[in-house]
């Protein structure tokens, strides 16, 4: 059987040797940190105005992570490109001829992709947090406050899982344009809209992004369906399901 470390090395070379995939990762960082910093600065400068008539406690962590919805889009694109470019160029046949053990191959891809996404996400999450807090001045919080550290790690896990979820969906669809056409509107439009529509939102609260984003909350929200760790479990279940689905499709279909 093919050697697993060899597959990891080879997949790592694949990822790092294409600029477009690296750029989407850089974009994840820039967008998440940048938008968070901007909103933290604005909030600090207009604090009393922004907080007028607001009863809930001020969440300095989520203010810093204001850019994550756009940042997640970039890492979703990264997940799609990393798998999808095999299909757009006919490369998948070269890959499978080199590594015919398809399940092992996809596992190797997911490990490399997941590890890289995790590293970038952790760095992004902490820099986003510290930048945001620095700009929030007297309204800032620290990692020592209850649940804050969990929320920052939660943000990193959230980005990583959405990336792997998108990779799994792309492996199922076997087409990067189609995968982008399905995932981007879903995460950017459908899920946020449905999660506030009465009745429908009960369903939308079990979508991977809503569930995963529960990990970012420091304070309990009124009427929240479940806690942060249940959210993590639901998001993880989606991610594993997408990857298993991708592996089943890869194993069963002609390349």
């Amino acid at each position, binding site marked *: 059987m093919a050697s697993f470390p060899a597959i990891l090395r080879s997949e790592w*070379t694949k990822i790092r040797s294409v600029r477009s995939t690296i750029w989407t990762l850089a974009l994840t960082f820039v967008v998440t940190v940048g938008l968070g910093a901007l909103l933290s600065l604005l909030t600090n400068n207009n604090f009393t105005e922004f907080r007028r008539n607001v009863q809930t406690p001020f969440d300095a962590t989520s203010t810093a992570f204001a850019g994550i919805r756009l940042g997640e889009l970039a890492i979703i694109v990264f997940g799609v490109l990393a798998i999808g470019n095999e299909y757009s160029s006919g490369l998948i046949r070269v890959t499978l001829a080199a590594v015919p053990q398809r399940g092992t191959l996809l596992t190797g891809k997911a490990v490399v992709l997941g590890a890289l996404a995790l590293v970038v996400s952790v760095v992004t999450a902490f820099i986003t947090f510290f930048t945001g807090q620095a700009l929030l001045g007297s309204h800032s919080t620290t990692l020592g406050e209850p649940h804050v550290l969990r929320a920052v790690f939660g943000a990193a896990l959230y980005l990583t899982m959405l990336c792997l979820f998108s990779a799994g969906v792309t492996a199922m669809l076997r087409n990067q344009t189609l995968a982008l056409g399905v995932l981007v509107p879903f995460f950017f439009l459908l899920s946020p809209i449905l999660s506030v529509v009465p009745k429908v939102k009960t369903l939308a609260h079990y979508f991977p992004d809503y569930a995963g984003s529960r990990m970012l909350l420091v304070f309990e929200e009124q009427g929240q369906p479940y806690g942060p760790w249940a959210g993590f479990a639901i998001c993880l279940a989606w991610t594993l399901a997408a990857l298993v689905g991708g592996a089943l499709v890869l194993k069963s279909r002609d390349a």
Partner: protein
Amino acid sequence: MIELHDLTKRHGRTLAVDRLSFRVPQGVVTGFLGPNGAGKSTTMRMILDLDRPTGGRVTIDGRRYGQLSEPLKYIGALLEAKAVHPGRTARDHLLWLAQSNRIPERRVDEALALVGLTPVARKRARGFSLGMGQRLGIASALLGDPEIVMFDEPVNGLDPEGILWIRNLMKRLAAEGRTVFVSSHLMSEMAVTADHLVVIGRGRLLADLPMPEFIKRNSRSAVRMRTPQPERLLDVLAVAGLRHEPGPDGSYEVVGGDLAALGDLAAAHGVVLHELSPQQASLEEAFMQMTADSVEYHAGDGPGRDAAGAPGTWAAGRQQHSNAQPAAAARQEEN
């Protein structure tokens, strides 16, 4: 050695490959010939376990492709040109391939040098011409120094220099003792490279024999004679006991006849000749005859009508891309 046993592939209602059984002999170039849609690419994809057979099996050295660990060290394949990420450099493309099969990195540079791509090793594949893409594909196939190489229509779209290069490469690989399995839809191309021939049509095996044998069986030589005195000529031929066939434009063709002897014969009997010329039926024609019933699309005439006489698009159309045997094409038009 590649062995196929009753290999079958069905796509919905089309049988792409139909109970195909043959062996690819070791250490020689085997031409895998068939008109468009015959099932050559499908067969090759099944050999690599990319497409799953509907029935039958195919083994490499007795094992299924999926059971080979580090398969690039056994068999290297070029399936389609430019199966590379456009944004990756030639060297990086070969590097990840090498790493996946634990092939030493120095082989990457050797393979690049072998196909003449060293100067563009660090250029992204986006800007590569068809010929360069083809060379990169061949470098990937040779990367693991495999015993068996398999090329799917490697000369398609190449210029004469590229065609010659691939032809010589295949001969050299076979001379080194490697097994070369190469598909084509051009008999003329195979005639100059292949030692063995496997012909398929509509997914079915039509022939599996050594090249010299195919040539012996299928090349027909004749002498064409044209005369303003046909009756006298026919009498002379009849007396001499020579078999003849009607040729084009009222000429006659003496199958297996000797040019000088026929000229002498005509002179001895005072028959005026306007033409006395040797005729060699091309292998291309023999191949077309063999696959005539299995050609999917015919040019012009409706399907099935005197298929042998109506040139299929695949042969007549592509002939001009080949620098070999231009006479065959010319003769095709006459018939």
